[in-house]
């Protein structure tokens, strides 16, 4: 069955301003994700479902996207369009100067079938075993049953097997900007830094709580303060946060911003507003920028705590003997260290 999902992958050569390109591409797709590859090229993934309806056909949309890259100061670009993320990335890598836009219309598994296995994320040992067995293309791997792949080449090979069958269900994680704010009025003019800092921190937490979706799905990029002094003057300042502002980062940034006012505001403040500028998940899609990092961080904490309490209690299986014919002999249990 032909799948309606379409994803575009745009590879841009040379030095270019990634943010500017992202802004330009955001007009062409409901979700644009930046996923730079290891070769140093800029890589953008674009949600492309339904573009044929708007632009007449997909190739026309591809030409517009390539033109946008040039207009935004990007170098030579290649575009791949397919049903899955992996398919789009492969198509973009196959596109060339003569044909910069590679569109995969056929069922993806069939299109991927003749391509070499090296393009799949397979462990080295699995790749070697496949070669020994005379399996060299994605189609040959895709034809194997799932249990056989897991048993013979290890369960870590199943991702590659799925992708070779055109079953890569990773979505494009787009982003849009939105601001949330929280405000407080002081009963008496307030000039003490500690009091202002405590208020600003509480307001930032409240603003974060007021995000319309689960706050872990957001990446807060900027934080700002607006204040009204007792003389009626308005003060404003802002700073840039990383993707994962923990409580300490947030507090440090608020303190820096408040200190900027110390010279100007000898008078007390009567109103303080904290605003956060974040990235909103695209409609019906969940951004997980914070969640992924938070999970990793939590896991490190768990390993540390359990490692202290039960030194030999937490184990992991490691690939000890890659040549062992039986799967359980290939792995050995080892202490999991932080």
């Amino acid at each position: 069955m032909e799948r309606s999902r379409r994803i575009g992958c745009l590879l841009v050569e040379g030095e270019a301003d990634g943010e500017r390109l992202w802004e330009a591409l955001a007009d062409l797709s409901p979700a644009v994700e930046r996923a730079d590859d290891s070769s140093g090229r800029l890589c953008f993934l674009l949600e492309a479902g339904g573009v044929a309806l708007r632009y007449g056909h997909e190739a026309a949309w591809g030409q517009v996207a390539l033109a946008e890259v040039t207009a935004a100061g990007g170098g030579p670009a290649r575009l791949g369009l397919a049903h899955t993320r992996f398919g789009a990335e492969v198509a973009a890598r196959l596109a060339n100067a003569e044909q910069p836009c590679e569109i995969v219309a056929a069922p993806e598994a069939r299109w991927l079938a003749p391509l070499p296995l090296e393009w799949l994320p397979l462990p080295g040992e699995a790749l070697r075993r496949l070669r020994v067995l005379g399996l060299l293309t994605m189609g040959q791997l895709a034809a194997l049953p799932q249990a056989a792949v897991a048993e013979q080449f290890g369960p870590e090979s199943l991702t590659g097997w799925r992708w070779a069958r055109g079953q890569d269900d990773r979505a494009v994680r787009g982003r849009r900007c939105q601001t949330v704010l929280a405000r407080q009025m002081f009963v008496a003019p307030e000039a003490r830094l500690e009091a202002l800092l405590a208020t600003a921190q509480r307001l930032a937490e409240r603003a974060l709580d007021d995000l319309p979706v689960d706050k872990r799905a957001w990446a807060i990029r900027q934080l700002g303060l607006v204040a009204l002094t007792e003389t009626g003057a308005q003060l404003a300042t802002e700073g840039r946060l990383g993707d994962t502002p923990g409580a300490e980062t947030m507090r440090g940034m608020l303190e820096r911003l408040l200190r900027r006012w110390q010279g100007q505001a000898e008078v007390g403040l009567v109103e303080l507003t904290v605003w956060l500028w974040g990235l909103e998940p695209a409609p019906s899609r969940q951004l997980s920028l914070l969640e992924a990092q938070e999970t990793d961080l939590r896991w490190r904490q768990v390993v540390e705590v359990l490692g202290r309490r039960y030194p030999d209690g937490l184990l992991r299986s490691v690939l000890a003997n890659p040549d062992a014919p039986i799967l359980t002999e290939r792995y050995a249990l080892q202490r999991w260290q932080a």
Partner: protein
Amino acid sequence: MAERERKQRLESTVAVIQARWGTRAIRTARDLPPRAVTPSGIVTLDALLPGGGFPRGQLSEIAGCGTAGHLPIAARALAEAQRGQGQRQGQQALVVDAESAVDLETLARCGVRLDKLALLRARGLRQALQMASDLLRAGFTGALLFDRLRDLYALADGAALQALEQALRDWGPLLARSETTLLWLTELSSPGLYPEGLPLAYAASVRLVCERERWLTEGQRVIGYVSRVTLLKSRGGAQAQSVALRFTLR
């Protein structure tokens, strides 16, 4: 009039609380986000389970006697948790192995990535419960499988039973906060014979019982089996429904 006044008073109270603690501090049940699940990885079983999988933040029990499919079901759910799907991120999977008898081969065959799997090796039930409690308190988020315990029938020992009851009481809020999917495998000595007095039946949100119906053979060789999986309990979903699942041993 009294009704209107009561409504106004309620609205003003809500407004005061929201102004002080944020709009998320108080809200109607309608505004609550839907409960997240970890899919079982088996489409027909997901159709049976409330929300399409094992609930995150709650305990699910899968019971069965030898070769009834309860371990493959749990293993596939672990694999699904590790893998993530679409917008859902992959999670950490962990097996509590109180009897040093974890079946890594079945786990691997069901798609669990052994290189990313953590094992918590305990000496007996009481230490396993303590370790799981510490794990949840330390902030673990992911999928946690409590592997089969053969001494569940020895729970007549009051202290062990008390420890289990206490652990189940402690885990409720910890699980809910961490959104961890806790799967508990209960090994039955024979079909339909559930360990007497085991408090899991009360604590679990979802209970599945697996019973092997027949072996699948190819000539003289056994190549698998068909199990009937019955949903005994599900908070917020259908109950007493069953599905026949086919498991191959190759």
